């Protein structure tokens, strides 16, 4: 966690303790997953911190964990459709389907005061990282939540495969890994800072 984001967590309210993520998808896990040719280590870290902040502030970690089976199935459905629609821009089609899905999670799992606090945090984050242009906060919140979900799926399957290393991994797990890696690479392209390096 960067110092600036630590400040952000504490700046929300002075009376309440800082919100802390409870699941295994930590900013470090997200940063490690995103770091690639597409995303520099610095950008990966900033995005990872922001994604964690958004999910924690929306207070949807537990909601996501409880419905993970449904959510992961729907995300795989998005990917499946994107693969078949590759001639029309696979990543674009994936986002087109996945963003409303993520918005559903935010709207059912969160509350209006949490969303309001999160939009304020995005504004603070913009100032902290020195962006002069104020981004549309709603799409940013949706996209960061999507990144969190993809990393959660990818991390889960990676862990499961590691656990089965001693025995032969079932083909189904390998196939799932391929799907989640493809989704992770979509997330990496979404976060790419390659051309601006």
């Amino acid at each position, binding site marked *: 966690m960067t110092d600036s984001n630590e400040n952000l967590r504490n700046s929300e309210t002075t009376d309440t303790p800082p919100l802390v993520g409870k699941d295994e998808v930590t900013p470090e896990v997200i940063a490690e997953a995103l770091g690639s040719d597409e995303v520099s280590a610095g950008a990966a870290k900033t995005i990872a911190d922001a994604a964690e902040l958004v999910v924690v502030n929306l207070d949807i970690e537990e909601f996501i964990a409880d419905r993970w089976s449904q959510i992961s199935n*729907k995300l795989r459905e998005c990917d499946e*459709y994107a693969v078949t629609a590759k001639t029309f821009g696979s990543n674009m089609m994936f986002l087109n389907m996945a963003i409303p*899905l993520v918005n*559903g999670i935010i709207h059912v799992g969160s509350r209006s005061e949490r969303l309001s606090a999160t939009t304020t945090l995005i504004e603070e984050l913009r100032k902290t990282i020195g962006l002069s242009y104020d981004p549309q906060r709603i799409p940013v919140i949706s996209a960061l939540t999507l990144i969190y979900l993809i990393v959660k799926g990818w991390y889960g399957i990676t862990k499961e495969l590691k656990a089965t290393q001693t025995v032969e991994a079932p083909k189904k797990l390998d196939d799932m890994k391929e799907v989640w890696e493809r989704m992770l690479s979509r997330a990496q392209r979404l976060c790419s800072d390659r051309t601006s390096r």
Partner: protein
Amino acid sequence: MTLKLHVYNASGYSRRGYVTTPWQPIQEQTDIEPERIAVFDADDKPLDTQVHRVDPADPSRDVLIFWLDKNINPAREQYSGVSAIMTVGERVREMSRPELKCELEGPVGDEYRLKLSNGRLAFQFELAPAPWGDERNFYAGSATSVLLEPEWSEHLWTKEMLDAFDWFEEHDLEKRCMQIDRVRLSLPAWASKHEVEFSPIRQPYKLLSHSEGPVRASVSVASSPFDYKYRDPLRGVDRTLSCRLHRVISLYREANFVVDELSVRGTHDGQRKAKPVNLFFNASYFMLMNLGLDANPSTYFRIWDWFGICGAFAPNPAFGFATDAHCSTVVQGSPDYPYEERMYKAFSWELERANVASCVHIFSRCDAMTIESRAGKAWYEYVYRPLWAELAVKSPSPASVSRRKQ
């Protein structure tokens, strides 16, 4: 006998769509059965036509509705002249059958739910107060599900408009719209109280009639009766009007909106055959619809006839409302709504005093600007200057520009 019908397009541009006219004056001059009636255009082409006998107890409320496939121009005389002359005669062919359906649930005479659909919009309307069979007994007169097909071939996780973000199939059973939760009637100046208030949400509505045809799927319903007691100063006696809120709820062909026509009708002292009187009333609408955690009703200074509500999150569920009775500011999270966690979904607004009110409820998926524009257009086209017709038996009266001006 062939009757001539004057059709009025009182707007400044060409239009098509549904046209309504009272059925009773036509019926008095023809012996054609309502099931065999048709309107013919200037080229003698039969148009899809339908008669809805709105209230079996009051034939003056019956309407003939027909569908204009082609645009008709506005009249040369600005907003007042006849735009087209059509004829009414006996049907020569069967009408086309678009996907307009009106399904009733429950035994005849004791229906508890209605389902109206037109292939684009489908909704479920509760007559009974407790449709889920539990202690929640406040749903009478509300639509508890509204399904809207995609506007184009967009992918949707759910078609439900009242809970558009919830693809988990854990829909909020509190969701509902188009519910009149309060009716207020003014009392005479000499009464000790200034008004009578009635909430029709906990007692069943009664189905008066339903109509399913090529132009609209429609139902006419009445709330449970409530008393309006007043002192008659001329006779010096206390009198009671037994009143009901009447609603004609129509889903037209091709529409993504529902038209709700309201009136309060009272009969004196329980006289069975007395002609009901229309009373002036204020009605309040209540809606519990998830339009987004950040949804905000549009507010425009001194625009009292329509509004739109929309959130910024895809799939952008949007709701628009238009009326000829003026409406108050929309209250989000009304103070008497008991569930704090659902406050952002709870909307209420009140109509100004009127003796009849036409209201349009629009459902869409679009941004805030678009729903406001659609609500404004709906107000103009379906409430303020609807296409309408009248029998050409005498010199045409000036075109209706609004019910209020009439």
